[in-house]
């Protein structure tokens, strides 16, 4: 045994030495191969390569395409390009950046924020050839730098196309903005296999349409063969493949309507989404406060960025698709429709609303103390009875509610053509099971179903979902995917490509059931909770007010708006469509901490509908009514 092992040792050693010899041969063979290749390139083909290197005074310079425009439905320009001179630094060629910048500051105005922005760009972008220290130079500055050009290495003046958003903050959450291509963007472009088309391009869409239609807007990069001198300076252009400008994007949005809608919010925070029910085209898309996208164009400076990012109003949040809110009583028309479709109620069946509903040992209160008395379906919507829907939810059960609402798109992304959409929450026992980890939290309690019935509880949807659901109802059950783009124009060929309406599903609802709910919603605006906001309207419309609780109120407490801090006040909601026959518009309005939907959200909708249907511009902004006067406590939403 020992002998065998010793022999093994010896044979393993012999094998090893043999293998070392083989490895040595491998090295020699591989190096011989390299040597042969070197001889081929450097001796046999040397003349050819020498000539190529001589000819290689021809640099291939990418020519970035000009970015497509963004227009509204009437051809009004929302994003365009203009030519301006920038002062650029080539970091790789500069020994001491700070000294160079200080020296440049003697000739052009360089603010601390320019320096801060330059440093930020330097951190975000790797391997960039050149980086702007100053943008939009005046003619005088250009000539001053040009005259002193010899003093600097690694500094140059470039003509660049800049993006401009003529409407500033208006529709900022739709249009979005562009910014410099970061390392992260580059990785994405590499993943999409389009990075070669981005050579020479410094900017890319970061938000809104600018981001979601980046590929359309970008165009095709051209290239120039430029003869360069021994120092690498361009002498003349030998040939070029012209760049193809990006496609122009036309939106379904009406920028005038958008302006009216945004102005109607005043200083309030909130969102509004207005949809054309028959196509899904978005007519207005508001998230306020917004921001000025022009700030981002040549790299936002850190101060402005901090101001936007740290504002308590969160202007960078797109509330319309990324904010989720309980729908409050705007949920009731859908509940009513569910009751009819599932045979849980008839339009005429009534309940008694004493102002509360007792379930187990809990009292669920109606927002009107004393209740609405005898309530049928029409009255339940027009006066917004809570008790009617507490009972209905209890009779239907959570599974039936969730099943029906899911078909209306609640708790599912609408698929609108913007990035960053939230899914929201359609509460169900399965959802709760998945959402929580502790077993006692995972259980669904029957009491929770009751608050779901009036749009509270775990319900949380985006304003866009609410608008889509209403548009589906207005459209008698045919659901379209909301979209912002109407058509794409190829600037070169003139070819126009329409974005076809995309039918998501047909809900197959009974026409008589829809008629009942629509009739009741018309009642809301005629004689119900939104009657005051729609007094004297010259068109027919249907609506529903809503109020979403931000903080829970204790069992025996009364919600008193004047006593609650502004950011803890209820959210005001309102949904409406008009006209009643063949609706042209369906919208959802949300006013954060706006209190009663009837008071703050419905008037905004009225302003928007007046403009959209009648072309009526709102009167000069009225003084807002003092807060305390309105709350009588008897008001229902």
């Amino acid at each position, binding site marked *: 045994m020992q002998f065998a092992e010793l022999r093994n040792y010896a044979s393993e050693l012999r094998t090893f*030495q043999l*293998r070392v010899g083989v490895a040595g041969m491998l090295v020699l063979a591989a190096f011989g191969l390299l*040597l042969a290749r070197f001889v081929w390139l*450097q001796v046999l083909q040397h003349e*050819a390569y020498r000539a*190529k*290197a001589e000819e290689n005074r021809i640099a291939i310079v990418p020519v970035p395409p000009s970015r497509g425009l963004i227009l509204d439905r009437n051809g009004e320009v929302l994003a365009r390009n203009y030519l301006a001179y920038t002062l650029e630094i080539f970091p790789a060629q500069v020994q001491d950046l700070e000294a160079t910048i200080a020296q440049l500051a003697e000739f052009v105005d360089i603010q601390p924020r320019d320096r801060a922005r330059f440093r930020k760009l330097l951190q975000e972008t790797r391997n960039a050839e050149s980086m702007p220290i100053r943008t939009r130079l005046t003619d005088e500055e250009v000539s001053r730098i040009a005259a002193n050009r010899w003093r600097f290495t690694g500094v140059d003046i470039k003509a660049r196309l800049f993006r401009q958003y003529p409407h500033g903050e208006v529709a900022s959450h739709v249009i979005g903005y562009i910014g410099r291509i970061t390392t992260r963007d580059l*990785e994405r472009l590499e993943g999409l296999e389009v990075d070669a088309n981005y050579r020479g391009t410094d900017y890319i869409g970061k938000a809104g349409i600018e981001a979601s239609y980046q590929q359309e807007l970008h165009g095709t990069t051209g290239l120039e063969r430029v003869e360069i001198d021994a120092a690498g300076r361009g002498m003349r252009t030998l040939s070029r493949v012209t760049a193809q400008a990006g496609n122009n994007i036309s939106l379904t949005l009406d920028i005038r309507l958008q302006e009216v809608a945004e102005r109607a919010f005043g200083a309030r925070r909130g969102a509004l989404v207005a949809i054309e029910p028959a196509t899904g085209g978005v007519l207005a898309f508001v998230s306020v406060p917004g921001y000025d996208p022009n700030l981002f164009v040549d790299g936002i400076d850190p101060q402005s960025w901090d101001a936007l990012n740290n504002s308590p109003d969160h202007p960078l949040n797109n509330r319309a698709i990324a904010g989720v809110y309980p729908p409050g009583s705007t949920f009731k028309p859908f509940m009513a429709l569910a009751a009819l479709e599932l045979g849980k109620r008839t339009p005429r069946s009534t309940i008694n609303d004493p102002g509360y509903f007792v379930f187990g040992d809990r009292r669920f209160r109606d927002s009107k103390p004393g209740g609405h008395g005898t309530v049928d379906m029409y009255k339940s919507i027009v006066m917004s009875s809570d008790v009617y829907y507490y009972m209905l939810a209890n009779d239907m059960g959570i599974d039936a509610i969730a099943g029906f609402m899911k078909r209306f798109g609640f708790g599912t992304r609408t698929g609108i053509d913007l990035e960053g959409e939230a899914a929201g929450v359609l509460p169900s026992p399965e959802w709760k099971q998945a959402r929580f980890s502790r077993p006692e939290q995972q259980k669904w309690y029957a009491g929770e179903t009751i608050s779901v019935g009036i749009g509270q509880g775990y319900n949380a949807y985006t304003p866009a979902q609410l608008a889509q659901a209403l548009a589906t109802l207005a459209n008698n059950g045919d659901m379209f995917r909301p979209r912002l783009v109407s058509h794409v124009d190829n600037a070169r060929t003139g070819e126009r490509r329409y974005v076809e309406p995309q039918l998501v599903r047909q809900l197959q609802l009974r026409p008589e059931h829809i008629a009942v709910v629509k009739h009741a919603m018309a009642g809301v605006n005629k004689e119900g909770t939104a009657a005051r906001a729609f007094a004297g309207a010259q068109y027919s419309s249907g609506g529903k007010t809503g109020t979403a609780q931000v903080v829970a109120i204790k069992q025996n407490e009364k919600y008193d708006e004047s006593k609650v801090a502004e950011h803890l006040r209820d959210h005001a909601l309102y949904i409406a469509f008009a006209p009643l026959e063949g609706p042209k518009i369906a919208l959802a309005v949300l006013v954060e901490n706006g209190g009663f939907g009837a008071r703050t959200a419905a008037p905004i909708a009225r302003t928007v509908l007046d403009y959209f249907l009648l072309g009526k511009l709102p009167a000069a902004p009225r003084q807002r009514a003092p807060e305390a006067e309105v709350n009588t406590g008897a008001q229902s939403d």
Partner: protein
Amino acid sequence: MEIAGRPLHRLRARLVEGIDAPLFALALALAAIGLAALYSASYENAARVANQLANLALALAAMWAMAQVPPQTLARFALPAYVLALALLLGVALAGEVVNGARRWLNLGVVRFQPSEMMKIAMPMMLAWYFHRREGAIRLRDFALASVLLAVPVLMVARQPDLGTALLVAAAGFFVIFFAGIGWKLLAGLAAVALACLPPLWGLMHDYQRRRILTLLDPSTDPLGAGYHIIQSTIAVGSGGITGKGWLNGSQTHLEFIPERHTDFIFAVYSEEFGLIGNIALLALYALLIARGLSIAAGAPTLFARLLAGAVAMIFFTYAFVNMGMVAGILPVVGVPLPFISYGGTSLLTLFIGIGILMSIHRHRKLVQT
């Protein structure tokens, strides 16, 4: 005199202890060539050269430290080093930082760290240690197990994706298995399996990696992208001719036609300026370095030391061959630096640690096995 001189003398003796003169001279000569090429590639930027000198100083310190560690101690650390490197690779896969499209870095707060680099050393140590324990009774299943130990980290690195490092780690492990005496038939079988793995591997590859291989076949298809690298680097090499254009006079280099000219493509700069003669000198230096490594391996007393030294020498070979082959346009573009010459602290550190290991093995060649 006597009193002051003795400690100084002793210090010097302590410093040169364990330093193998031929290895040291060869590595330093290569590093010096690297600095000269870097100076030209960076358009005579002294700051960058100074930076690389600092990297070199650190690498030399690491080499010296490794030369002091006896192979037996290294063997003790083989398994922990391998497990640690594997754990860190897992960390990278789960929480690594993405730089230039690849998830390779682990951010440790102060420094960013590339665990795949550590694997280049840990892998041959681990396999050498494993075969050493099985010495005298190495069977088929040992080769199978070793292949698994090799394949797992290689696939993890390849998925980052870092094809260059994956290739080097794979080579490091493969040469241990090769030196351990895997049968020729088995080797042929493995080669067949590897060939069979190519199509699925093609599917796993990132698009840019596929494009690099395709453009090797026809560089003109992608003149703005990866093909441009190959076209320009071959022109640089070819136009260098027999004697080269002279230091700092490469037009390809100085007109910015050579991409990545400080790092992976620095050989194009060197070859353009020093020509075929320079290339032969460089090949000779590498050949001598590898030969010295192999001869140290042949004279090593234990199986662990033999296998480790042999693998380290052959890693140097793999680096040099793959890089020069890529620049000369006969191998696809993978991110493998030219050893001792390309700019960058991490690879220099790893390489000199390898030199240090060889020195230690050589120094302890007469120690009797315990």
